[in-house]
């Protein structure tokens, strides 16, 4: 599903983001990418969604080599990968429903399709009853669930979640992780970038540890090592 072959990323003038990374993530896996701040976790996520291009090496997603992806092809890639960030990236003037529908609207989906898909996504994340509320009237955890619903509307094969629980308390963190597990159970590959020790240890799934841009550990049922 996702394959990194000898991938390096250097930021000018000579800051190393990733160094000679080799990794293979299989379809339907739930993988946690862990490491301390500034070790290259976010670079890993950005390379996956073509926000950055590798300096060296090859990244293949579902047979598609995105190492030198054209800018016109990036939107097509992003419709296949759902993205969730630490800052919720919601539109404050739109309701929960409108925020989720926005992802389909800007990609040219018909109104019929939007009316069909958005309620389903809201139901999956447990926000069906709060569809008419504005982001400021729901909790941080609910806002993050709204963002996950937005990431789900394209029915992506992969979800990349970069520190999705970074701004949440322990209760909301548990809810978000449970939701990601539920999505993973439907067959979606989940790549969770985090430095939350408890979350990683409780998940007991594959853990890839990055330190100073290098993969220092890759365990099938891993723990937070650092």
């Amino acid at each position, binding site marked *: 599903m996702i394959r990194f072959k000898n991938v390096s990323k250097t930021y000018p003038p000579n800051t190393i983001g990733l160094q000679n990374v080799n990794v293979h993530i299989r379809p339907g896996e739930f993988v946690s990418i862990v490491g301390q701040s500034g070790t290259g976790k976010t670079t890993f996520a950005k390379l996956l*969604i073509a926000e950055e291009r590798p300096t060296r090496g090859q990244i293949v997603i579902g047979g598609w080599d995105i190492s030198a992806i054209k*800018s*016109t092809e990036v*939107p*097509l*890639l*992003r*419709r296949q990968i759902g*993205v969730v960030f630490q800052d919720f*990236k919601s*539109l404050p003037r739109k309701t929960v429903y409108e925020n989720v529908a*926005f*992802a389909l*609207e*800007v*990609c*040219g*989906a*018909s*109104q019929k399709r939007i009316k069909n898909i958005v309620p389903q996504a809201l139901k999956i994340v447990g926000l069906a009853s709060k569809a008419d509320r504005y982001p400021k009237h729901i909790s941080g955890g609910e806002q993050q669930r709204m963002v996950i619903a*937005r*990431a789900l509307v*394209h029915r992506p094969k992969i979800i990349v979640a970069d520190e999705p629980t970074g701004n949440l308390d322990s209760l909301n963190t548990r809810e978000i992780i449970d939701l990601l597990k539920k999505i993973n159970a439907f067959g979606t590959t989940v790549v969770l970038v985090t430095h939350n020790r408890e979350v990683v240890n409780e998940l007991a799934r594959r853990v890839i540890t990055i330190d100073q841009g290098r993969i220092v550990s890759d365990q099938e049922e891993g723990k937070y090592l650092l």
Partner: protein
Amino acid sequence: MLFTLSRVLKFGIQNFFRNFWVTLATISVLIVTLVSVNILIILNVLGKVAMTEVQNRVDVSVHFKPEIEESRVQTVKIALLGMPEVRDVEYVSIDDAMKRFTAQFKGDDSIVAALGEVGKNPFGASLIVKARNIDDYPKIIAALGEPSYTNLIEEKNFENRQMMIGRVETVARKLQLFGFATSGLFLFLTLLIVLNTIRVSIYTRREEIGIMRLVGASDNFIRAPFYVEALLWSASSLILCFAIVWPAVQFGQPFLQRFFGTSTVDLLGFYTANFFMIFGTQFFAVCFLSLLTTKMATARYLKV
């Protein structure tokens, strides 16, 4: 496709109203530019009217010596009419010359008294020659300078009118130059303001744009609403410019006719006859300008 188009329009209209004050400033600058272009058009029309009026008044007055007989003057008239450059020749007899002089100085007792002292009609006959073209006068004057005419002619006057034409031409040229410079300045300011308005618009929508990118909106879909916004500025500014220029022309028309002393100054007629040409060209020009600036601004400030 239709969904995409309708959403691009929706987002463009939202942008237009969302940054109300910035939109207002942009439209104001566009209006000032368009009004200055219209002032340039009006100056051009008035300059042409003034030139035509002056040219119509230009003639060469050929005053013959009082002792020259009418038949000889008529011979000169026929010779002049034979020249392709001459449009018309008017013969003013000795008596007519006297009548015109007394009519001109009717209120001036000293001149009338001086004329009485002379005792007889002191004027000679004259010919008033009008050329087809203002550039033809030197040729006509050269022809009148031939030896066969010089001993008949007492005086020819043309020089003063030539100076007047020169002055009108200079003033018209300077006004036009000033108009071009002013329009150029406003054009430059428009470019700067539109560029910065798009920049502000991009800044205001940065979160929305960021989300669009994340969820897979195409580059064109992200950029297109800014072009819609620019077109809305162009259309609004032209409508408002029309709302200023049209009443101003209607209001100013009688004053201009009084100033030029002729009813040939018909700005309203000019605008009516060339309505689509004038405002259509301005619409396309302002659209082109704002779209070009939008392209520059989005290329520079909108990273998609």
